[in-house]
Structure formats: C-alpha cells, structure tokens
C-alpha cells in the first residue's frame, strides 16, 4: 500500500516505537522564543545538561516586543526581563539569536521560511501552537509545551504518538476577493474548532496548488484552530523556487541532492487517509467571524446563526460567546462598526499580505474614527515594504506601519485593543480577551480587513473592488 506524505516524513524520523505507547521522534529544527523557553532552560540547568544540538536551534523575540521605538529599552519590566533572559540563555548555551534590532528578527513562523531554515522533509517544533505554519513546506511541524521544549533542547527528540491523517481537497478556482485566509476560515467554520483534533491534515487540490507559498502558509498556520496537530502540503515548483537562494537554503550539489529527495515527498495515489473532506473553491466567500472561537465564522453575505439553529446542549456556550461579542443571533455582520483594524501576525504579515493590502487601498483613505495598525512579520518584510514604497501608500491612507512583532495578535505586549472595542484582525484567534481584556475580535483576510479600514465597518470587499 502507498504512503501518505506525512507517513514518509514521519517514518524517516522515528528512532524507536514503544509498544502501546508513543514513538521517539527526531527533531530537525527547533525554533524558540522568549515566552515558552525560560523554564525549559532552567530545567536544563537544574539537571546540569547542555543543549544537545545548538546548531539546530534558532531563537528570536516576538511576543513581548514593542512595535514602535524598538531601539529603546522595553518599558514593561517583566517583558524586558523575559527578552533579556532569552539573550542570556542563548549566549550561555551557544544558540543563534535574532534579537531586537537584528535584520532577521521577526515572528518565529515568519522568519523560519523567510531564511530558508524551513525545508521539505524536516520535522520542526516550537513552543508555539502556530508552528503548523511550516507545514506549507512539506514538513511535519507542530507546537509543543515547555516541558517538551526542554526535552528537545536536551536530546533533540520528543515522545509522540502518530496522529490520524485527514486530507482536505480544495478544488476549483477562488472567486475574486477571496484569498487563502478565507479558505481556512471556511474550512474551520465547516468542521468546527475541534473538528480535526487528533489529526494531521494534508491540504491538496487545485485551489491549494495554485496558491503562493505565503498563501499556503496562511492555510497551514490555522490548522491548529480546528484542533489539528499540524497541516502539510506537498512541495512543488512553487515551493522549490521560494526556497532557492534563501540564506540557509542548500546550494550547488547539496541543492540537487535535496531536490531529488524533495520530489519524492507526496502522498501516493493509493495512500490511505482516516478521513477526507472535499471542498469546492467556488463555494467560498470572503469570511468573517462573529464569535469567540475561530470556528464561528460565516460568509460575508450570510447571517449569524439564530438560537434555533444551535443544539440545545450548545446554547449556553453560544449565548455566552455572543454576549461577550455584543452580537445578536441572526444578525448580519455587514455594516458592523469597527474601532480598530489589525493587519499582522504569523497568519498574515508576510510581504504578499502587505502588498495585497497596499494595492487595494491605494488612493483611498481610512475612515475617520478607525485606528489602523499594519505590523510586518519580520525585519525583512519591513525592509522590503519600505524598498517597494508600500510604506508611502500606508502613510497616505492613514494606516500606521509599525515594527515587527506579534503585536495585537495577543494581549501580552504594549499593543492591546481597549475593552469593549471591536477589532477586525488578520490574526488567528478571536478568543475572549485575546487582543486585550474584554476586546472583541472579528477575524478576516487582509483584504476584508482593509475594506473595513476604509469604510469603518465590516464590508464586502467584492463590492469595493469594482470601483478600481
């Protein structure tokens, strides 16, 4: 019987399988950041251990960093200590750190691919659930907890059980105004925030094949929002040409050898999946979420489910969620006023996202009472945006281009959405308080977020594209 893409990579990395238990999985690359690593380093020290393979660890700071005046010391003491602690740990244990001010600093899931560290066939982990992003490059990439970070630092291995496998085929052509973020929000709305728990999800089909690497990363990024252990996409010409020439990409003979292997990474025709889901690209509209988990999304022309549409058992949670959001059951999302627009995060802060927004808003201006933040995912994205003059377009439109970091994706650094305010956000989570205490989040694509920035309310970007 044939093998799935996931199995081909998995089997190559298993050192040992325990009867009735997990397997020992070898990890090729380990990304770390300031929030989930300090206790792991402390654990190593308490055991008197070194980092086993420091060259396979890459570190950056992202969650806690301010996104203006990065040259100044971080104001908040605990954030400053955490960033400083990572610096000290990296020095002590011989790990390369792309710290604040470094030309490669950025959100961990943006810099890995951008630097060519992320390559097909690898196993990649990070103490961060959106590690699934790297699966766009045909890697097995997943988030881990801090105890596991310690295990990988100490042994370059983890104890893992093999997940079940699901394939999601998206066939057809996307409608105008519909982008990869809409694909993944649509999928999650179909199968729910827990619909893929216990699975590794392979995305396939013509609509996925036609996506750029940036767009594929957006899809894989949000795999975790339906509970999936990871997302994965078979590599092709798009993948290879994205990697070629990047800082840590193989060169010359090594490139040829790597390519030969990469080309074997696909699910065989007779490979078996535990579950399969087929989606027509034409069904997908620009998406918007109305509730407090990413599965609570609808097409922009649709309506929030009414109470009659919800299972009796699920009603209390549903009502709690809508009450938090200040949204009525059965309402339309179109026309809902927004106070903030956040374009950023590891889901949508790559150069392509910024270009997409810039080309849409060129010649337009933001609505008066809306605050718009554009936060590039990395120093390199920021630099390129400036080189391409995109920063000017943002400036003219009244959009504030900030410096790289996780920013308002999570209420941890200085960038928070005030209580009760509405933010349309290109990030990945609309949980209660995610963007700040009592802040309310609508998740959407960069295009839909940009449209709201111009009109000041949730809008159908397709209606505005005709004006161009």
């Amino acid at each position, binding site marked *: 019987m044939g093998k799935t893409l996931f199995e081909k990579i998995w089997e190559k990395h298993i050192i040992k399988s325990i009867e009735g238990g997990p397997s020992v999985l070898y990890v090729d690359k380990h990304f770390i950041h300031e929030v989930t690593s300090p206790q792991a380093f*402390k654990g190593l020290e308490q055991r008197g251990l070194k980092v086993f393979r420091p060259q396979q660890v890459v570190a950056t700071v992202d969650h806690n960093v301010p996104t203006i005046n990065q040259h100044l010391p971080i104001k908040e003491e605990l954030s400053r200590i955490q960033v400083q602690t990572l610096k000290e740990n990296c020095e002590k244990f011989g790990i390369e750190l792309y710290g604040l001010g470094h030309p490669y600093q950025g959100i961990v899931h943006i810099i890995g691919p951008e630097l060519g560290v992320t390559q097909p066939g690898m196993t990649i982990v990070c103490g961060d659930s959106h590690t699934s992003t790297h699966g766009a490059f045909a890697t097995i990439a997943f988030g881990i907890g801090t105890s596991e970070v310690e295990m990988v630092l100490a042994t370059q291995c983890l104890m893992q059980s093999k997940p079940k496998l699901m394939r999601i085929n998206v066939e057809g052509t996307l409608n105008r105004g519909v982008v990869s973020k809409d694909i993944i929000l649509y999928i999650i709305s179909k199968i729910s925030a827990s619909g893929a*728990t216990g699975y590794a999800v392979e995305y396939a089909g013509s609509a996925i094949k036609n996506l750029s690497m940036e767009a594929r990363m957006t899809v894989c990024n949000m795999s975790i929002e339906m509970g999936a252990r990871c997302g994965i996409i078979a590599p092709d010409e798009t993948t290879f040409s994205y990697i070629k020439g990047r800082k840590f990409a193989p060169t010359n003979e090594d490139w040829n050898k790597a390519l030969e292997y990469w080309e074997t990474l696909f699910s065989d025709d007779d490979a078996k999946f535990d579950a399969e889901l087929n989606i027509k690209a034409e069904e997908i509209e620009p998406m918007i979420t109305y509730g407090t988990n990413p599965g609570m999304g609808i097409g922009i022309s649709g309506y929030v489910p009414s109470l009659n549409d919800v299972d009796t058992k699920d009603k209390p949670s549903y009502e709690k969620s809508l009450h938090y959001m200040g949204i009525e059951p059965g309402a339309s999302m179109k026309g809902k006023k927004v106070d903030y627009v956040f374009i950023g995060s590891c889901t949508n802060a790559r150069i392509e996202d910024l270009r997409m927004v810039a080309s849409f808003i060129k010649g337009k201006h933001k609505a008066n009472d809306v605050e718009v933040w554009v936060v590039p995912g990395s120093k390199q994205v920021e630099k390129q945006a400036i080189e391409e003059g995109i920063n000017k377009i943002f400036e003219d439109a009244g959009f504030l281009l900030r410096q790289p970091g996780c920013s308002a994706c999570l*209420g941890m650094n200085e960038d928070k959405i005030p209580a009760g305010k509405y933010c349309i956000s290109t990030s990945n989570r609309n*949980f209660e308080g995610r963007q700040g205490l*009592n802040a309310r989040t609508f998740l959407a694509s960069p295009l839909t977020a940009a449209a709201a920035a111009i009109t000041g309310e949730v809008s159908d970007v397709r209606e505005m594209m005709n004006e161009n």
Partner: protein
Amino acid sequence: MSKSINIITSTVVPVNIENIDTDQIIPARFLKATSREGFGKNLFRDWRYEDDDESKLKKDFPLNDKRYNGKILVGAKNFGCGSSREHAAWSIKDYGFDVVVSSFFADIFKNNALNNFLLPVVVSDDFLQKIFATVDTDNQTEIEVNLPEQTISILSTGEHENFDINNYKKTCLLNGYDDIDYLLSMREEIEQFETASN
C-alpha cells in the same frame, strides 16, 4: 508538585463551558514569568474577576462559588484548545487540581497536562452530562478516578466508565517518571540515528 498519580477521590469543580481555550485558563499577560511557580492564583483570571479587579468577584463562576471545591476540574467539550502554553497546565495544577475531566481535550494541552502529572480523563459525552447533572443536584458528590483500573465513578450513584490512556504514559504517571528521563537514557541511540541519517 505531586509527582505520581494513583487513585483520586474528591468533590469536583464543574465548569460547564465548551471550547475552553488556554487564553481563558491563563491570559497572555501572565505569561511573562521565567519560572513555573505561582500561576494558580491567575487561573481563569478573567472569568473570576470583573475588569481584572480582585475585589470584584464574578460570583456565578464556579471557582468563586463556595459550594464547589476539590481536586477534580470538570470542563465541557474541547478543553484546552488554542495556544500551546504549558502555563495552562501549570496554573490548573498549581491551583490544586490533579485531574481534569472532559469529553474531549485538545492535543497539546493533553500532552502538557501529562507532563505535569495532571491527569486528563476523557469520558463519553453522556457520562460528562451525568457528572454535571449529579453535581448540580448535590455539590458534595464525590468522583473517584482510579488510574490503575482506568475507571471513573460517581460514588453516590455508582455510575462509572472506563477511560483510555496509553500504557507508557500510565506507567510514567503511576511511578513519577518523566519523558525526559527516558529520552536522556537514549542518547546513544539518538547519536547513532544521526550518524546513520547523514
């Protein structure tokens, strides 16, 4: 932190909410610590206090409800989804729970819990509803979680169910072993694997 788990008999704290994500269990602003201790006091912070003000208790939240206490936390479906932060498991354990019961756990949370000797027990949806209903009528209802036998029982009614856990993890929990000890014992094999795959 108590290492090793065997039989736990306790009253429970029921939080009948679905999709409890780790941002609710411990909000991001409390992740700035560089040690593992002291997270319990901020467990479910924003569901316990109005406007982040400790003098303004949200009285209807079960953790603030004097009728409920114990070592067993019961949550509804898809418990622990979202962020991979192990701080969520630390805060539940630090608050004093040894077991979390739900009909469905998110993968990363489950691993994190196990790595901290916090036992995640998966029960059927039916059984979960029974627990909520029984505790609702009698908040002093005791639940017994028996790891060696892999059973969970509502003592007052005698209703019980088996739960799954893989053998390896069960041995670890019963004996207080960590994954890291096991992995460290494999260093030689790991090095051989590296040489062979290069």
